[in-house]
């Protein structure tokens, strides 16, 4: 059997090749068409006309055939792409529209998925102005709701947002499945990202009255607390500085220099060590160590913490007085001593500074007219030795600020 396709045959019969023209105006009659409704009977009627060999015409002959359209399910789900509720917040609503794009009446069942747990919690669902506490209850209602071809229903998902979830995205997906053909479904995913608030505080804010010796190679550490008071995880730029001339910043949070950055979870805090040195400046010099923390998420959110500092030093004063051998009778400059007499010198050290003094040592070289006999300390802690008249005494303990210690040196007048 020879089957001839339309185009080749048409070319052989150019007589019929009269192009039909249709302007775009006519084309505008094109319109969107829904699928043929279930149960529609499509009737196709063909007609044949002919003549016989003698040119006699005959009545046209027609024939028809019917086909009936069956059911095909179709579902679409539309809704918002994104939502930005507050954190924390309650009773936020996202509305989904479910349309029956099949060619017959159908019902749907709903399913949901939440990609990241702990961000949102579904409070309830709303369908036809009725609240349903659970998805199962919603589906019971949906199963009884006939949706005609091209019709829509709306399902509202009412949800709560947990605290401290600013910026933490989760995807809520609502899936609608045809009841009549449960392999047909559609879904809509909504990315829910709770709005993030940015805030920071740094403590303490002064009042420590730190008293520090000049470093002389020894660094000091002060610990600030940086609090992320926003509702989401954030990074913070940290910059340490000082207001006076005594301090030099060595490192911040273990990073050499004056700046670094740190990540802190929502509503959490972290301790930041600022290492610094104190210059060789006069006692009483004051300075302030400042740690500034600035939110990376919102650089208008910044706060300073402060530690105030005063430079201290020990100040040793020495006193020496001569006593009779009873250690009680003071020998004034006008008093006389006689050969072979025993006298005693009381040598005292007093720390009048604001810091304890260590390695306090006394050296006393007795005059040649005297002969060293012995030396004792006022209390434990002295290490005393002599080489002839040269007497050395070292205090093995710290001479606290304001404290005073002394030794006795007994000698005989030659």
């Amino acid at each position, binding site marked *: 059997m020879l089957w001839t396709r339309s185009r080749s045959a048409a070319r052989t019969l150019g007589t019929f090749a009269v192009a039909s023209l249709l302007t775009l105006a006519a084309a505008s009659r*094109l319109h969107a068409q829904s*699928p043929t409704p279930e149960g529609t009977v499509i009737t196709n*009627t063909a007609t044949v006309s002919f003549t016989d060999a003698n040119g006699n015409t005959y*009545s046209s002959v027609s024939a028809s055939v019917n086909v009936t359209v069956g059911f095909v399910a179709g579902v679409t789900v539309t809704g918002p792409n994104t939502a930005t509720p507050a954190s924390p917040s309650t009773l936020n609503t996202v509305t989904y529209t479910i349309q029956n794009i099949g060619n017959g009446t159908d019902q749907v069942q709903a399913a949901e998925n939440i990609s990241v747990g702990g961000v949102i919690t579904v409070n309830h669902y709303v369908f036809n102005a009725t609240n349903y506490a659970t998805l199962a209850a919603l589906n019971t209602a949906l199963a009884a709701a006939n949706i005609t071809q091209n019709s829509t229903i709306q399902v509202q998902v009412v949800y709560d947002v947990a605290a401290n979830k600013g910026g933490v995205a989760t995807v809520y997906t609502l899936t609608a499945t045809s009841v009549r053909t449960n392999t047909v479904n559609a879904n809509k995913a909504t990315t829910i990202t709770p709005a993030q608030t940015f805030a920071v505080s740094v403590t303490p804010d002064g009042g420590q009255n730190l008293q520090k010796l000049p470093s002389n190679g020894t660094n000091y550490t002060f610990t600030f607390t940086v609090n992320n008071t926003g509702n989401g995880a954030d990074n913070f730029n940290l910059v340490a500085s000082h207001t006076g001339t005594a301090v030099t910043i060595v490192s911040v949070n273990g990073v050499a220099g004056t700046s670094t950055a740190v990540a802190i979870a929502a509503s959490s805090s972290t301790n930041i060590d600022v290492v610094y040195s104190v210059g060789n400046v006069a006692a009483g010099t004051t300075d302030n160590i400042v740690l500034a923390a600035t939110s990376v998420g919102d650089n208008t959110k910044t706060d300073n913490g402060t530690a105030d500092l005063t430079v201290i030093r020990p100040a040793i004063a020495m006193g020496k007085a001569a006593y009779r051998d009873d250690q009680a009778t003071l020998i004034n400059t006008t008093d006389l001593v006689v050969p072979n007499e025993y006298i005693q010198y009381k040598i005292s050290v007093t720390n009048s500074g604001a810091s304890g003094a260590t390695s306090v040592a006394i050296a006393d070289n007795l005059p040649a007219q005297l002969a060293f006999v012995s030396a004792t300390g006022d209390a434990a802690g002295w290490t005393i030795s002599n080489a002839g008249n040269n007497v050395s005494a070292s205090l093995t303990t710290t001479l606290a600020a304001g404290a005073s210690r002394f030794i006795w040196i007994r000698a005989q007048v030659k």
Partner: protein
Amino acid sequence: MKRTVERLLITGFLLLSAAFAARAQKSAPRQQALKISAENLSAHMPRTDSTHVLPGDTVRYRLLFTNVSSGAVHGIVLDNPIPAGLRYQVGSAKSDRGDVAVLFSIDGGKSYSAEPTIDVVVDGRHEQHAAPSEMYTHVRWLVRGDVPKGAQLRAEYDALVPSVGAAPASLTK
């Protein structure tokens, strides 16, 4: 007398011829000259079930013309309006004879063309573009030659049932 008999015979023959001719013009051939059948080509439907289709299915319509008259016929024109709701599948129309031209209408059967075109304005210029399949309204088969007594002519084409979920366009018929 002889002339009278001849006149009567001629008159009778003419009357009979006229009567047969008049009968031939007013009545269709006694047997069914045209049959049309439908087959759902989609795999999910049984091929034996030609009466049910689903959106998205393709239906193949087969036309069978049989010359049931007593002699050859010619000037055969098979017309088939594409049923409303169906979309002609471009390139599917064919026949089993080589002297058949297949033509199409996109204006409800007012005019026919082997390749219907539409006028499209592109950058201010009018251009002829092939008409989209959804604009096709009729299929016509024109047979140039004769069909002998008892012979058959087969023609067919495919049509799509608009599917669910698509956003098809269709000519208003």
